[in-house]
């Protein structure tokens, strides 16, 4: 490959042709600041509109300053990233951005998480010059179950637009109006809830300021915890344990399962359970459904719908209902683990504990904000009482722990409560892309072939590529699977299925980069893809360390079927653990 030599801040640098000044500078330890530029390596996620103009640098011989994020290095280039001219320009532009930004950092939901705030500190901004009564952008606030839009805080970095349009192909957000009145909004300025938004929250996950934030439900949780008439149980999704530690300064990828259980108990939850239990249950139901469909297909039933699509991800389900209403019988009818847990808790656990349904409160901790929306879906409640009452994100749990004065890092490791706290390694990897498929294959193989697996790790399914395919030998029957993460990739797969180009038996879709570990409820990745990989590795390690690694081996699952449900896909299981989908084409 062609190499280019240049000088950045008097340091000689050699880079490959096509490297930007921004990237080249990183290679020699010069971190040029930027607000709009964001890239997740190897995930096809990039935002590079050249809009914020913070990353400008001086290039010898060039008339104006160059945006380093979008200027390629050339041979012999002499770059200065911190000359007085650059620093003055950067500070002036920063001042401009701040001059149209509310000065309410102290009460902003992004306080302490805000890239704009950090940069203002780095650049040493002490004063924001502007005339008295200078115009400031004002726009109505927009609240939804999952996220909140406060566009007054928007700096038009356009990251949300890139995520929504290019990465997710949802198309809910786009810039409207011109000049100073420009704003990122929905079409016809609808409320987000009425727009094609699927609540994946990836816009929130990349927002550098407090313009797009998660809906905060911590207050509701504190309130029920303090209510003596309520029994409050909590479930935590697999991806949460891989990221929660980051909020307390632990290295990305540190698994904090035990400390998390301890913290939840100290917060006052009556029972601390695990969504992983429900993930194992999902595999029982979904795996049985898959084998049923494959079996029928092999017997020559041409009406059977293949591939089976996973249904764990609520943003994906929204996306599916809006874009593929002609294929409504294609996804698995199995509810997501969160909702399976809720159904089991309210219909089985409540009885077991001797608590009335309306006095049992189910709280979920999720890496996701679409889950907040999911638990409000009407089909997931009985007489107005939802199966899952409140869903909070990983970040909200961290906030609660901090508010409750709990020194998280020094907590001892504790176990989840029984019976809904027991899980296998198969459930743990639900949190990363390919995990559901791998878990399903582990169980489906053994059920289908009646043999024990020689190997448990299906490495061919793992990885971070957007679309992955593999063929698994089920004792002579080849089962073709496909894994897609990020909805744009899902769209490619779905369009191929619809047109008959692809023939798979099963497809796993997760809306977020890397699966749930990259969900919008997690601590923000801030463009660092290595962080997502560390989280995935953490889950795979936990899986490997588990004594039980196949869902059908979970003793409490076996017990649940024996005591209550009968067998997978039984009438009761169907009633409690399965759902149906709606045509939401009108939303797009």
């Amino acid at each position, binding site marked *: 490959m062609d190499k280019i030599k240049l000088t950045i801040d008097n340091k000689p640098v050699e880079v490959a042709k096509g490297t930007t000044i921004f990237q080249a500078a990183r290679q020699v330890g010069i971190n040029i600041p930027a607000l709009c530029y964001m890239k997740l390596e190897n995930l096809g996620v990039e935002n*590079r*509109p*050249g*809009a*914020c*103009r*913070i990353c*400008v640098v001086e290039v010898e011989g060039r008339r*104006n*300053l160059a*945006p380093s994020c*979008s200027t*390629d290095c050339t041979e012999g280039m002499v770059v200065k990233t911190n000359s007085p*001219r650059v620093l*003055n*320009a950067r500070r*002036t*532009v920063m001042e*401009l*951005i701040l*001059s*149209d930004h509310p000065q309410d950092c102290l009460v902003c939901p992004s306080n302490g998480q805000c890239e704009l705030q950090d940069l203002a500190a780095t650049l040493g901004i002490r004063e924001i*010059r*502007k*005339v*008295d009564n*200078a*115009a400031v952008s004002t726009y109505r606030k927009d609240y939804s179950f999952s996220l909140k839009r406060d566009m007054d805080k928007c*700096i*038009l970095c*356009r990251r949300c637009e890139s995520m929504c349009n290019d990465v997710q192909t949802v198309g809910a957000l*786009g*810039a409207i*109006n*011109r*000049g*100073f*009145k*420009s704003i990122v909004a929905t079409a016809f300025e609808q409320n987000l809830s009425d727009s094609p938004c699927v609540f994946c929250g990836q816009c929130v996950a990349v927002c550098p300021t407090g313009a797009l934030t998660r809906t905060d439900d911590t207050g509701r949780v504190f309130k029920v915890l303090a209510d003596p008439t309520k029994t409050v149980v909590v479930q935590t999704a697999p991806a949460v344990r891989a990221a929660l530690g980051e909020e307390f300064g632990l290295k990305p990828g540190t698994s904090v399962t035990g400390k998390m259980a301890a913290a939840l108990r100290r917060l006052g939850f009556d029972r601390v359970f695990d969504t992983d239990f429900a993930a194992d249950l999902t595999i029982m139901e979904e795996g049985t459904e898959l084998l049923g469909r494959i079996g029928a297909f092999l017997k020559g039933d041409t009406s059977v719908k293949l591939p089976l699509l996973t249904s764990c991800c609520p943003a994906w389900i929204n996306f599916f209902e809006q874009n593929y209403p002609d294929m409504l019988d294609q996804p698995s009818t199995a509810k997501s683990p969160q909702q399976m847990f809720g159904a089991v808790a309210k219909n089985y656990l409540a009885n077991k504990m001797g608590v009335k349904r309306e006095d049992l409160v189910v709280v979920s901790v999720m890496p996701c904000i679409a889950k907040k929306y999911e638990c409000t879906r009407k089909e997931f409640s009985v007489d107005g009482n939802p199966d899952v009452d409140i869903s909070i994100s990983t970040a909200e749990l961290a906030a609660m722990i901090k508010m409750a004065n709990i020194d998280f890092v020094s907590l001892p490791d504790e176990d989840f409560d029984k019976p809904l706290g027991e899980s296998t390694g198969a459930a743990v990897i639900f949190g990363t892309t390919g995990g559901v498929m791998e878990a399903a294959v582990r169980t489906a193989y053994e059920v289908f072939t009646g043999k024990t697996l020689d190997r448990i790790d299906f490495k061919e399914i793992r990885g971070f590529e957007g679309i992955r395919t593999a063929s698994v030998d089920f004792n002579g029957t080849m089962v073709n699977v496909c894994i897609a993460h990020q909805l744009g990739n899902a769209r490619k797969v779905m369009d191929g299925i619809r047109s008959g180009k692809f023939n798979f038996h099963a497809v796993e879709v997760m809306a977020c980069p890397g699966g749930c570990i990259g969900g919008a409820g997690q601590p923000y990745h801030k463009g660092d893809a290595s962080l997502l990989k560390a989280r995935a590795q953490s889950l795979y390690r936990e899986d490997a360390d588990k004594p039980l690694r196949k869902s059908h081996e979970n003793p409490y699952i076996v017990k649940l079927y024996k005591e209550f449900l009968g067998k997978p896909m039984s009438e009761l299981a169907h009633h409690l653990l399965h759902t149906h989908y709606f045509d939401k084409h009108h939303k797009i």
Partner: protein
Amino acid sequence: MVQIKMHLLVCGGTGCRASESHRLVDELNAQLQLNGLAEEVKVVTTGCFGFCEKGPIVKVIPDNTFYTQVKPEDAEEIVKEHVLKGRKVGRLLYEDPETLEHVSDSKHMEFYQKQVRIALRNCGFIDPENIDEYIVRDGYAALGQVLASDPKETIDLIKKSGLRGRGGAGFPTGLKWEIAAGNKADQKYVVCNADEGDPGAFMDRSILEGDPNSIIEAMAICGYCIGASKGLIYIRAEYPLAIRRLEIAIKQAREYGLLGKDILGSGFDFDITLRLGAGAFVCGEETALISSMQGSRGEPTIKPPFPAQSGYLGKPTNVNNVETFANIPPIILKGWEWFNSIGSEKSKGTKVFALAGKINNVGLIEVPMGTTLREVIFEIGGGIKDGKRFKAVQTGGPSGGCLTEEHLDTPIDYEHLTAAGSMMGSGGMIVMDEDDCMVSVAKFYLEFTVEESCGKCSPCRIGNKRMHETLEKICQGKGTLEDLEYLENLGKVIKDTALCGLGQTSPNPVLSTMQYFKDEYRAHVVDKKCPAGQCKALKSYVIDETKCIGCTLCARNCPTEAITGDKKVPHVIDQSKCIKCGACYEKCKFGAIQIR
């Protein structure tokens, strides 16, 4: 066949049509009919003559008699006197503003004498709705010549001619074509940028209205040279007449086999479609234009990739401005040496300008590069209106700079204008006189760029707004010396950091006026005075006791009852009540009201 003895050319440009030139045409035809002259005298609706100040224009061929401000009612006299009896209608002839004498024909008008019309060669001569008239004046001959030769030769010829982009940036056209030609692709595009958006500018509109075929021919030539079979003209929807004439011209060219499959038997296919812009100034920037044509938000994208690499629909695209294209056919027919011999050292050929402001001959002109501002303003433009003093000239559209008396001998070309702190731009030229307040002028232009910023990059979106607010503050008399420092720094940073040409030039009016009219700015902030008397907040009306006779007229006309005084006793204005409407000033018959 009846020999046509005389042609009456009537301007059918947008300006003259607004003054009912189309009715004039009907009336002339009716009068000719009435007098039995319809067979031998032909009325032709042409494109713009450029002399818009005195429209509607009627030019008589062969004697070049140039009638100005002709009304439909004048048709009878023109036909009866001039056509029938050969006597010129004196009252309709152009009157020289200096000598006050009537000028018998266009050849003797200073307005035209200094002009060299290449891009405008056919405007005002031919009927733009009739392709035959274009062909008669060597139209499509260049295309025929090019199609019979190697594209490389033509690109080479354009390169040697020294033609540079007339949209403002001045990028060498031949080089642009060469880059586009060098990029391999299954499909390439030729785009004509007709999104003329500078306030007061109408160069491109006039060319499209007056000579649409020249653009079609040049685009086909470009298509052949770079290997594109599709052309797109991005034109503002606010130019309905230009759009109609382009549509007619495209249709006729297709009928003649000059567009479409296998043009002139060469095997080369080329066709053109129109894209109507929605009126955003920034869409004149080529990447924003492409974005808009693709149905996306009209905002610029980062370069590279340049359109020549990845433009419309991701394919190599060559974007040229209307005037640039209009220069192509003559260069091919007359040779690069001819074109290269016109103009200044690095800027070759001519440039079309829309002259406007406080100048006698408002209109459209085309002059060789290197012509001085003085020649344009005082000779072609006929000097400043009402004998006032010249103060400044703003070139380059809303983001150009203001130049002063000391720059009057500056040759007009890319290099000199930029060196002086302004720019060529697409050809707007607005003249200001002693009554213009330069702070207000800067504020006016900035208001335009604030409105027209696409909002993508922070310095342009917020910076221009802040500059405008600061100028507003200064005009309100609330400015400080720190504000001037703030403005200067902000202006420089915006120029240094903005994403596209719009933002990189938008502070020019402010920075150039701050440089050349420093005292005027200081007067606003230090003395709280507007020397030109334009800034309302900075002027006060006072009554000169020695002149006031106490007639009470001013008091009776004051809407806020700010003026008091007994009859026959000098009156007084209560400054706290005065809203500075100027009613007293207008009404006073004794010159007793003074502005301070």
